[in-house]
């Protein structure tokens, strides 16, 4: 419906957070530049105005300190929503994340839990170079004890944020800069969709069939889903029917949905803006081949970021990034279609 309310992911995230803050006094927000500025990527806009700077607090540039603090606050009964401005910065504070946040529930035999959300921006494509453009999906998904989600559109963004805040466990909430709907980062129109006003949850750990198809399954998350959808539209014109799976969560990973799709199509392409090796794309391929080897009509393929740091120069970065053309070419190959010259 054209007159439905459409939001950007940034606004959907802020709305979900505000709604939870209204009903749950335990929820508070902290991070760099999240109060007055409303977050560099807009996802906390309006919160400081509504809830004040005690509950929405700018931090020093001390990620180890304040993410560690979030863990302690969560263990003490609060529900911190904390921001790591770029996922690329995880190297200065990963201990607080994966050795504390992710493990204290286990170490305490479930006596403490750590209900917190760590929001962090991912992704490149706008020439921000090698320390500000990574996805690092695999780096987080590999380590046990934290859930990992990433929305491809504003509807999921709101529902996943609500679910994440309500979850009694730590959730890494990765939002792709290219989908935020901040004009200055470019805008993926497909991410701006209808978002209901009332609070709702999108279940963490459930993938979504973003488009149904018969011939090939394209599995991705966040920005990659839009590449997949674009490719699917092109492929349709070429007589190839592609199914697009939007993972939405990496942990838990909805292996059933992936497998069911490939069982149907017999062909798999994984689209991953994270580095190629030892990450998401390998895991998805292994997931399928472990159980559905006989279904595979062609070897699985991955369109992932090559194993190189992300270059600044636009031509170089664009060369490396996944895109619809690369997916189309791979799909045609898998389907045995003639590759047009």
């Amino acid at each position, binding site marked *: 419906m054209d007159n439905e309310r459409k939001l950007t992911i940034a606004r959907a995230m802020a709305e979900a957070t505000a709604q939870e803050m209204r009903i749950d006094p335990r929820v508070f927000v902290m991070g760099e530049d999240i109060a007055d500025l409303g977050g560099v990527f807009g996802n906390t806009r309006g919160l400081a105005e509504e809830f004040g700077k005690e509950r929405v607090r700018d931090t020093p540039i*001390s990620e*180890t300190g304040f993410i560690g*603090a979030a863990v302690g606050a969560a263990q003490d009964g*609060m529900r911190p929503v904390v921001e790591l401005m770029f996922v690329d910065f995880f190297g200065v504070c990963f201990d607080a994340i994966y050795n504390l946040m992710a493990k204290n529930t286990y170490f305490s035999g479930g006596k403490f839990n750590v209900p917190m959300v760590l929001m962090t921006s991912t992704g490149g494509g706008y020439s921000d170079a090698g320390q500000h453009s990574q996805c690092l999906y695999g780096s987080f998904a590999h380590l046990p004890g934290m859930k990992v989600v990433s929305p491809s559109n504003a509807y999921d963004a709101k529902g996943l944020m609500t679910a994440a805040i309500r979850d009694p466990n730590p959730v890494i909430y990765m939002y792709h800069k290219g989908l935020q709907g901040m004009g200055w980062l470019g805008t993926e129109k497909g991410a701006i969709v209808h978002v209901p006003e009332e609070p709702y949850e999108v279940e963490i750990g459930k993938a979504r069939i973003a488009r149904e198809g018969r011939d090939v399954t394209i599995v991705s998350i966040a920005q990659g889903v839009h590449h997949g959808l674009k490719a699917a539209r092109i492929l349709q014109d070429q007589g190839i029917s592609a199914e697009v799976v939007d993972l939405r969560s990496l942990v838990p990973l909805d292996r059933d949905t992936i497998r069911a799709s490939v069982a149907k199509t017999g062909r798999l392409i994984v689209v991953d803006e994270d580095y190629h090796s030892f990450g998401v794309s390998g895991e998805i391929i292994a997931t399928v081949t472990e159980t559905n080897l006989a279904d595979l009509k062609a070897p699985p393929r991955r369109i992932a970021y090559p194993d190189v740091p992300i270059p600044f120069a636009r031509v170089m970065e664009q060369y490396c990034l996944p895109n619809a053309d690369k997916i189309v070419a791979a799909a045609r190959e898998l389907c045995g279609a003639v590759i047009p010259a």
Partner: protein
Amino acid sequence: MTPSRNTLGWMYEKMVASRHFEELIEKIYMEGKTPVFNMANGPIPGEMHLSNGQEPVAVGVCAHLTPDDIVTATHRPHHQAIAKGVDLKKMAAEIFGKATGLSGGRGGHMHIFDAEVNFACSGIIAQGMGPAAGAALSRKLQGKPGVAVSFIGEGAANQGAFHETLNLAAVWKLPMIVVVEDNAWGISVAKEASTAIQCNADRAAAYGIPGHYIPGNDPLKIYEVAGEAIARARRGEGPTLIEVETYRLAGHFMGDAEGYRPDGEKDALFAKDPIPNLRRLLVSDHGFTEAELDEIEDKARAEIEEAIAFARQSPDPKPEDALTAVFA
């Protein structure tokens, strides 16, 4: 601030309990590890960091805390856990890796967590500090009472988390105390080889907060200084950094040959053992009788022995329970 007679008795009791706990653990730890010392064997496998000699810090600080206050500890947590009132049986069972342990055997000696008394650990140097600040923030946001104490070693004061957390606690005026146990060594590295200044308490100046150094491993002095700092924190006046001279009477961990210690150091330290010292003082200055103190000791020891016996007798966890409690 002088502790009441009751508190003095409590401090002595907990010091004795803590020492006795370590002595028993030490002995049992070696079971199954002779003649060939292999950490993986025996009723208590893995690394073992004993706190012998460091009891004054634990009791001097924790005497001011209620179960509702928060403590975060380190890889060397037993004395603090005991002083904080962590359930002794469950803690012992945890160290034995038993199903009845605090976390059903998942955590072990370096991961003593007791939600009942708000006690948590991290085996990663200085990384308990952030969570302590966060718990302090939680109380502040909720308008609830409670201070958070983070115990760390003097070696940990050179870790980035030390700096970030103290700055954060100071900017936000959090009810938090950082207590540095200066036992002069970080494994084999002496304080002066790792730390640019003599006294970490001086680092308080970097955060505009009070800093105190307490020499002599003296539980009464620690009690006094910690008491003031904790009262200050409870009044909402912000964090304090305290460094305490203390003695590591054991090796860094069990199996440590301690070749790095200068000759005579260990003997000198044993001569200053804080437990007999306190006992003498309680008799000479505080009107305790020897009989009274014997009774306290017996009670402390008995409780420990009971806890250890409980741990011994407890069943192993089910192996497949390793897969549970990852998520709430």
